[in-house]
Structures are given as C-alpha cells and as structure tokens.
C-alpha cells in the first residue's frame, strides 16, 4: 500500500500543485501546499481503508483535488465575507449607491432588450454579460464556438441599432 501511495505522490504531486496554483484564478496560491496536503491525506485514508476502492487513481485524484479546492475556495469566500461585513467609509458608500442606481437603470434597459430576443440568443447574451468567452459559452450552451461568435456579433449589431451600447 505504501509503495502504491508513494508512486501516486511521485507521479501526480507536481500536477496537483500546478492545478491548485492555477485554480480559481490563482486564489489558492497561498494555500496550495495545505490543500495538496489535504488531498494526499484523503487519498492515503482511502487507500488505508481499502486499496481496491481506488480503481482508477487518475480519476480519483481528480475528484479529490477538485473537492478539496472547492472547499478551500469556500473557506476563502467565507473569510472574504467576514472582512466585507466590517464597517466602511460612509462617503464611499454614498458614491456606490449612486453608481448602483445608475447601473440598475442600465441593467433594466438591457434586460428589456434581452427579453425581446429569441431564447437561444438571449442565453448567449446573458453568458456574454457574465463574462463567458466564446469557448466557455459554446461549452455551456452545447453549441459550436463559431455559432456563438456569429450570433453574438449579429446580436450586438442588432442591439446597437435598437439603441443599446
């Protein structure tokens, strides 16, 4: 069992570390070592329980890294939420309120325009507004990248003609 575990660590540790460094836009860089440690502890425990539980080590490591990274990001978000909950400068808050009102109006106008589009096109625009690139949009909506590019270009032109920007 120890040999198996050592072989897995030797083979995959670098890959695990590189993935953790890149995960979530590099937000886990500080905690990458800890998360990697957590990953290997989980795998070690699973091997200890029953070695035959891990049929496909590659897939098992993938799932473990993913779940550990997921939890780590959640912990980070919680920490960030606590920091954000602290009292801030009141003048800055007033500016933010004005900005948010303006943004809300623009958002309403945009929503009305999106609502007038066919369902497929509306989804593409929503994905675009969420910051998805062409490849990500194509993957999410299950269509080709070329179709996304063409449709978005056409929709943007249409929206500009109708008065949006």
């Amino acid at each position, binding site marked *: 069992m120890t040999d198996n575990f050592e072989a897995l660590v030797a083979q995959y540790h670098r890959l695990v570390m590189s993935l953790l460094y890149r995960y979530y836009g590099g937000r886990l860089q500080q905690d990458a070592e800890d998360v990697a440690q957590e990953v290997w502890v989980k795998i070690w425990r699973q091997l200890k329980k029953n070695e035959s539980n891990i049929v496909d080590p590659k897939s098992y490591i993938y799932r473990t890294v993913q779940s550990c990274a997921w939890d780590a990001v959640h912990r980070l978000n919680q920490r960030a939420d606590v920091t954000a909950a602290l009292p801030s400068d009141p003048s800055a808050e007033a500016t933010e309120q004005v900005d948010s009102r303006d943004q809300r109006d623009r958002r309403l106008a945009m929503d009305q325009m999106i609502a007038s589009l066919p369902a497929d096109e509306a989804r593409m625009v929503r994905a675009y507004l969420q910051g998805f690139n062409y490849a990500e949009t194509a*993957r999410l909506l299950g269509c080709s990248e070329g179709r996304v590019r063409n449709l978005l270009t056409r929709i943007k032109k249409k929206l500009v003609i109708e008065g949006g920007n």
Partner: protein
Amino acid sequence: MHLELEQFNRLLEDRATTAECAAWTDHILDCKACAQRYKFLAAFQASWQAAFAAEAQDQVIEMKPSASRLRRVGTWLAAAAAIVVFAVATWPSQPSTTETTDVAQHLAAPDFQTGQVLAMVADINFKSAVQAWGQETTALDLVQIKNKP
C-alpha cells in the same frame, strides 16, 4: 441557492438530463458566483485533461526510440543478409586446385628444348586450324548454301 459541485460535474461531463441541464444553465447565467465557479471548474477540467494528454504524448515519444531501435536492428539484419547472399553468390564454384608438383622444379629442369617447344606450338596451331575442316562443308552443306536465295 447555489449549485453544488456534483451538479457542476454532471453538467461538465454531460451527465445531466435535458431539463436539469436547462435549469442549471439558466441558474449559472443568472448567478455571478455560480458562473465564476463553472468557469473555473471547466478550466480545471481542461487543465487536467491537457496534463494527461501531454503525459500520453510523452509516453508516445518514449516509445519512439524503441521503434527506431527496432528499425536500426532491422537495417543491420538486412545488411548482414545481403552480405551473406553476396558471399554465397560469388563463392568460387570450382574447387581450388593444389599444385602436386613444384613449379620451380619444372623451370629448373625443362624436359624439352626451345626448338621442340616451337615445333609443338606449330603443331597445335596446325591442328586447331585443321580441326574445323569438314564442319559445315559437307556436300549437303554446299547444296544448302547453293540453294539459298
């Protein structure tokens, strides 16, 4: 409510039903946090797959030297076979003769004089000149030659 990791995985691995897929996609498009998570999970999956594709590529590259080694061995074997064939083909068909008498002994004690040798040469020349006589010069040959157009 945000989507769970398992739901993202089902969406990314095309294991969700059409209805689930539509509902979760709509949620992702409405929820900034889930959209971000989806993007990072998709990127994570792509990186993982790329890493294993690279690993597989490395294995193919590692295999290559052994294939070239086999080719090299094959070339050497072909060369050796060609040499063997060449050697067999050019091997002297007549058995090598061994001198039973010493050449120097002959030279030292010739059995005949120069005049005799010349006479023998003349005799051999005469015989070889006469040897062809009568061949294709029979009466029948002459008749055939004559009858040729």
